[in-house]
């Protein structure tokens, strides 16, 4: 029962994690590499974060995740407080996303996502929860809604939207108002399509040439940069020098990588700085990877992530209780969304968002929160049902 044995560890997953961390340091080094004398120290910091993450991972593997169910409200409350604290600090680049601490800045939204997964799982997995009751449904909506709104107002639309598929899957699994959720999903899809079409055919702001079909009035409630990103996504040649620049450059970088890539530290697109240096090691790390290692390397990375996601799903299926199952499912979906959206935007099939690539992108909060999440998965798998 309580046998924490090395034999029961998911070694495939742990190995994948370690490989990814090692490669992360290597490619952050490469992303910041300009010349022999001018290498950023971010790769060292990333190794430090990874070390911190691994400690958390180790602790969580030994820790019985079931106790988290009892602590879930504390965790949730703590996350909400952190998300509120964000607003006390000055804006950076027009957003309240970070809490500056000595040595590094904390991004509470990363921990917030995890807290929502834990709280929602704990709430729904509680014995005697009547899933058909509307009260349950509204409670779920409230649990997700509060951090959602807080993150939305930071503003960080993409991270807040990430909560939707996670909670949707957990609630679908438990059968909370399944019909309503499915109908809602269809409605959202329809709405998104309409939104895209509207933006595509809306009248451009003054000074830009209007297309033949651009007749709709300007879409309210959205910032110009958000519309710009969607326009870039919808057409290949929108505003190449401005909003379309990153997409174009990212595609050029990936495309020029070819089958075998240009070799480590030889990604000229990256080294020349056509990929803006600020985003190359963070949101666009996959671009560097694809340019330097080509399709072979990119496919290898996709395979590693598939192994990771498979591990989460396996832990979910084989979990000994509902709480573990829900939590690992949520974590799996969270990781998937990050991986998919990030890689898809790098190769130009989704609009550009600020979602980092788990375990690869430079960033302390995200690295640690990802490692915590994976530690929880390992903890669940460790205590799986015996067959």
């Amino acid at each position, binding site marked *: 029962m309580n046998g924490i044995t090395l034999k029961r560890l998911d070694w495939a997953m742990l190995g994948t994690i370690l490989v990814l961390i090692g490669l992360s340091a290597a490619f952050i080094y490469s992303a910041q590499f300009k010349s022999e004398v001018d290498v950023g120290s971010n790769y060292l910091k990333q190794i430090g974060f990874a070390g911190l993450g691994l400690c958390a991972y180790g602790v969580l593997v030994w820790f019985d995740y079931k106790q988290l169910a009892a602590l879930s409200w504390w965790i949730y409350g703590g996350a909400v407080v952190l998300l509120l604290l964000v607003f006390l600090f000055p804006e950076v680049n027009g957003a309240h996303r970070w809490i500056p601490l000595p040595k590094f800045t904390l991004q509470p939204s990363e921990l917030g996502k995890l807290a929502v997964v834990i709280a929602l799982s704990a709430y729904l997995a509680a014995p005697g929860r009547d899933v058909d009751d509307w009260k349950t449904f509204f409670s779920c909506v409230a649990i997700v809604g509060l951090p959602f709104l807080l993150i939305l107002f930071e503003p960080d639309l993409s991270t807040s939207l990430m909560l939707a598929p996670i909670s949707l899957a957990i609630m679908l699994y438990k059968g909370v108002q399944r019909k309503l959720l499915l109908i809602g999903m269809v409605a959202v899809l329809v709405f998104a399509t309409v939104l895209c079409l509207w933006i595509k055919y809306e009248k451009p702001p003054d000074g830009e040439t209007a297309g033949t079909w651009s007749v709709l009035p300007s879409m309210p409630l959205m910032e110009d940069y958000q519309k710009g990103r969607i326009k870039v996504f919808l057409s290949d040649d929108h505003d190449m020098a401005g909003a379309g620049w990153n997409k174009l450059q990212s595609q050029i970088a*990936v495309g020029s*990588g070819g089958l075998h890539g240009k070799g480590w530290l030889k990604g000229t*697109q990256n080294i*020349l700085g056509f990929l803006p240096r600020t985003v190359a090691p963070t949101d666009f790390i996959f671009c560097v990877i694809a340019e330097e290692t080509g399709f072979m390397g990119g496919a290898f990375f996709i395979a590693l992530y598939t192994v990771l996601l498979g591990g989460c799903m396996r832990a979910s299926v084989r979990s000994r209780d509902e709480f573990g199952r829900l939590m690992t499912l949520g974590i799996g979906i969270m990781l*998937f969304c990050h991986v998919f959206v990030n890689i*898809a935007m790098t*190769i130009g*099939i989704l609009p550009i968002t600020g979602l980092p690539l788990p375990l690869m992108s430079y960033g302390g909060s995200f690295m640690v929160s990802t490692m915590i999440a994976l530690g929880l998965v390992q903890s669940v798998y460790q205590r799986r049902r015996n067959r």
Partner: protein
Amino acid sequence: MRVRRQKQESLLVIWVVSALMLLGMGVLLSELWKLQVPRKSGFDEVFHNQSVRRVRLPAVRGKIYDTHGKCLADSVPNYCIAIYTEELRAPRSAVANTLELLHEVWARVGRKPDVSFRDIQQHLLLTPDVPLVAWEDLDDKTMARWRSRFEEWTAPPKGSRRRREIPGLDLGKPVQGRSIVLKTGELRKRGTTTAANTLELVYEISERIGSPRAVTFQNIKDHIFARRPLPLLAWKNIDDRMMARWADSCTGLAGTDIFCMSARHYPEGENLAHLIGFTLAAEATREEAGERVDFDLRGIEGVKGLEVKYNELLEGKPGSRLVQIDVSGFHYRDLQIQPPQPGGDLQLTIDANIQRFAKEALMLRQDGEARDVPVRGAVVVLDPNNGDVLAMVSAPSVDPNAYMNSKRYRQLLLKDPHKRAYHRAVFGQYPPGSTFKPITALGVLKEYPDYGKTIHDCVNPYYVDKRRKRCWIHRRGGAHGELDLRQALMHSCNVYMFEMVQEVGYEPIHDMAQQFGLGQYAGLFPDLEMPEQKDKKYGNLPASAYNTTDACNMVIGQGAITASPLQMAMVAATIANGGTLYRPRLIQKWRTAPDREYQRNPTWAIRRIDVPEAALELVRDGMHDVVMDPQGTAKKTRVPGIEIAGKTGSAQYTKDKTPAGDVIYGTHTWMISYAPCDFPRYAVAMLVEDGVSGGNTVGPRLSALYQKIFEYDGTLQKEEG
């Protein structure tokens, strides 16, 4: 029951989610393949184009030498203080921000700020948080202008209601009292732009070398906008003192260095300006086939004379540097450098010494000449035995070195009343006057070999078709009396020529002039002689005369006949060498690069003049008498110890008209000549505009020229002392 059912279904959800994940990863994989493998080459090209720029590197311009190898046009280094803006990208200082703001405001106020660079530095060092008063005591007009320009500056951007904040300025109070105040505290916290950093460095260097700034803030911004990978040349043509100061005080500064460009220097200065021409900074890039040049480090190119005629040979082949640039457009690294190939050299037939003598001789003032205008005229010295141009002077001249270095000089030149830039020796078109008479004589002698003995009587007054025609001596109340042809040449008697042309007609004279190349292209250098009038004749030689009076005018070189000094020098050379008309040769040899062999430019006879030997002999004797006979018109040309032959000429032309309508005549004074008589080595044509007479105006000058030339070549011993 219900619990079991739910459990199975919920596992289904997990399986569905897993399947969706797998599908997602599959989509990523296939999209990645599509982007990376089939479309790769397209991206490669895009990638290459966007990161590589070609910089054109000018070659060192070839040199021009005189016949003895003395350098006439030299390539010298032009030292510049360059600023490498790419090294100034990092945020630097509040001083830069303050200077940038100061210049922005300056452009709008239109008045020099009341603080110096040192003031700003000191202020930021000691009391950075106290606002800096940059302008004081503005008058009402300036304040009003500043207010309105400030209003424009801070106008809200499109789609916004809020006015634009200018960091360091107060939106509400652009003017405080009568001062403009910069809030330096606010500027201290901000990052600096490259332009601002460059500006600060320019100020700093200016302060250290003690020389005013030579570039404006707008220049800097333009440079960073358009030519970022190239160095910004902040001071050009710096002299040794500035260079020493720079080396003393500025070598520690980052981002600045000495940059060497190629410049032209003409050691002979004014002497050869018309012939060699000069260079200027090359205008916009000329298209080079197949190669895209993104940045042109501008070289120099010829704009006049030989420099432009042989520009291609002299300028060499420009090299190029392939530069990879980074996202901000700065130089990242050199991919490939193709060094420029230095230009080829020219060696001229010009002898710099003779050229200088000719110039000096032409400038000698004679009695009775107006002192308030410069001597205007031309000299051409040819070697009659092969047509080599030994000297070619046009006066007044231009200083090519000043021309290249001073825009003011160039502008003054455009308004010059004496047409300094005009190459009189080659392009000047003057009536040849009596210097035409040897041609007249030869024309007649060819048809009537015995005409030399014919005697005509020069009487005063003399009438042709009831119109009075004058010999020059008539003006002095005399007449030449009875003369033969040789004497007529010596005395330059017009009446003899009038009688002659009435007997034989204009036809033979025209034919002879044509043989001598009048009215034709002289062939000094192809296409250069009359650049703006390609199909126009070179000089003028009418094919027929309207009437007898017209014919009389033309045989004494008046009327419609015109010729350039070069053409008249060719006439003198042809008579001197016994009848061979040589193409004037200016380029002795050339090479396409300094390490190549010289190639010779051959001498080339245009034709032999078809005229009996005896006729030539007679004309030469006549020309000998002009100088050497005590009664000759060019007695003043004599040089002791040298037999010189020549012919004077004074051609009247319509200079101006008085308000009443009377014509004011001017006189172009000429001499053509060769020496020594028995074996000629030099043939000279000299022209002075608005002189008195050929013998008096040109004669002494020619004498001085011959004196110096024969002393130079050793024929005459230089007088001691």
